[in-house]
């Protein structure tokens, strides 16, 4: 266990700590963040109304839209000169969501990521192959800080370049791998083709996140790569990876509650639900100053376990994600809303904005096909005209959303119309 004192802290003591942190947080954001001062004033709540952690439900929510509106640094509660790093959400048209970190924030990130790795048995002896992308995406750096804090031999190989991943894994004898679950299966297949026998490799654990996966997929990953596969959870709005993670029991993800406070709410009414009931996950960053967030509505659906975990940790666990309250798609780890694709399509010539998104998983990688109706007047008689329209759309999708999609023009009025909410997504992934 990385930090036994905190991780096994008795529940009442943990609550006392959380209450203390929440009070300082509310004072801080009321004083330093214009957005929250106004939001709290509009909501009719003062910092003095917050006396303990249970008063958290008196605070207003924060949405993704709010975070876009305060772009770039509108939630920063620290002095700008104390910001040492910034990350941003990928795959958004228009305004991205920004998270800025003070040195203390980076220290928190390192701590929660070290806990995440330790929960899967990592020690300073381990060789960590970090195949999450480095850059504005939070995955690469978050894992990196955790590995460094723990003292792992950390290999910042970043995402992609499968041949090199396999070579490094073999030559350095990586014992830990971090990437998306689908990419781990892709690596397993590619390794097998290259003649690698994973049962003879020193790999012992993998930490997989950034997209939804299932128990079936876990079984498959564990069988093919001969390691234990751990689910980890995080999001750019809060810090990145390191918000919650599975322990050796692999029964739910422990929330690092001393830093990130989870609530489950009814997404329609906003009412807080008791542990054990399914609803939308809401998170408050109790200790951050670079980008403190009050009651962030994740739109992720899960529940908090009522039972204590057999591992002895007292921090509550969430069930692996059960879905979304909105129509957000996660394709190869990139978050995409159909409305973003629609916005790109609206600017294109030769088509009508009637579309169908077909998502599949081929050779363990997500694929997206965008079927879109051609305009009535498109001179489709020439193949190159059709192919140019398809190519231009694919190019625009890649430029604006950073996704690779196959675009397929279909005949006018061939996509099914429906009353009310249109069916625009066919997800054939079996996850």
């Amino acid at each position, binding site marked *: 266990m990385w930090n036994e004192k905190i991780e096994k802290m008795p529940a009442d003591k943990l609550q006392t700590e959380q209450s203390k942190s929440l009070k300082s947080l509310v004072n801080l954001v009321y004083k330093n963040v214009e957005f929250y001062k106004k939001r709290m004033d509009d909501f009719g709540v003062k910092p003095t109304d917050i006396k303990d952690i249970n008063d958290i439900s008196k605070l207003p929510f924060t949405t993704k839209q709010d975070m876009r509106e305060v772009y770039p640094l509108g939630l920063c509660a620290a002095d700008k000169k104390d910001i040492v790093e910034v990350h941003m959400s990928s795959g958004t048209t228009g305004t991205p969501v920004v998270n800025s970190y003070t040195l203390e924030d980076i220290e928190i990130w390192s701590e929660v990521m070290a806990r995440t790795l330790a929960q899967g048995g990592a020690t300073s002896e381990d060789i960590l192959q970090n195949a999450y992308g480095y850059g504005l995406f939070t995955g690469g750096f978050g894992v990196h800080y955790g590995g460094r804090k723990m003292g792992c031999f950390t290999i910042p190989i970043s995402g992609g370049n499968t041949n090199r991943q396999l070579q490094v894994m073999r030559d350095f004898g990586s014992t830990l791998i971090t990437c998306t679950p689908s990419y781990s299966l892709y690596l397993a297949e590619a390794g097998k083709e290259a003649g690698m026998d994973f049962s003879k490799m020193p790999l012992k654990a993998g930490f997989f996140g950034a997209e939804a996966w299932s128990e079936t997929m876990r079984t498959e990953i564990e069988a093919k790569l001969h390691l234990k596969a751990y689910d980890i959870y995080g999001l750019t709005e809060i810090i990145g990876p390191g918000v919650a993670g599975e322990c050796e029991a692999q029964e739910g993800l422990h929330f690092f509650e001393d830093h990130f406070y989870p609530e489950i709410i009814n997404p329609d009414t906003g009412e807080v639900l008791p542990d054990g009931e399914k609803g939308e996950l809401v998170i408050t960053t109790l200790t951050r100053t670079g980008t403190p967030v009050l009651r962030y509505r994740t739109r992720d659906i899960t529940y908090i376990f009522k039972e204590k975990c057999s591992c002895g940790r007292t921090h509550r666990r969430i069930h692996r994600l059960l879905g979304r309250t909105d129509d957000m798609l996660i394709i190869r780890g990139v978050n995409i809303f159909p409305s973003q694709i629609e916005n790109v399509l609206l600017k294109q010539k030769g088509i009508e904005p009637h579309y169908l998104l077909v998502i599949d998983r081929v050779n363990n990688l997500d694929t997206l096909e965008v079927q879109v109706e*051609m305009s009535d007047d498109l*001179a*489709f*008689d*020439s*193949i*190159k005209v*059709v*192919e140019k329209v398809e190519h231009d759309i694919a190019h625009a999708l890649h430029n604006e959303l950073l996704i690779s999609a196959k675009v*397929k*023009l*279909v*005949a*006018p009025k*061939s996509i099914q119309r429906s009353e009310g909410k249109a069916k625009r997504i066919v997800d054939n992934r079996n996850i």
Partner: protein
Amino acid sequence: MIKQISVFMENKPGILLDMTKLLSAKNVNIKTLSLADTAEFGIARLIVDNPDGVAEMLKSNGFNARTTSVLAVEVPDQVGGLAMVLEVITEAGINVEYMYGFVEKKHPDKALLVFKVEEVDRAAEHLKSKGLNLVSKDDIS
């Protein structure tokens, strides 16, 4: 110049059969049909009598059809017939997008070459000036 019907089709089994059945039910005689295909879709190009009417009929039956102006050049059905026409087109710097040919019932010794070109009017003028026989819709039967 004549009008050709183009029908956009997804690559699905039976779709061409559905269209030809419909044409036969409506008593439309296909003078010639040429198919272009990619991995994802196909385009059927047809020469029929009354192309505008047939295109409308296809549309109202759910087919994605439109008409396109193409050049139809009559050449003797013999060696070198196509090369001769292409030479004339090439020397005018006109780009051919696609072409196909068929033999008419009325003149079994003549072949009809259908060309889709950019700048169709200029191409037609040029071919005529070189003494080639451009066919209009009334000539085909």
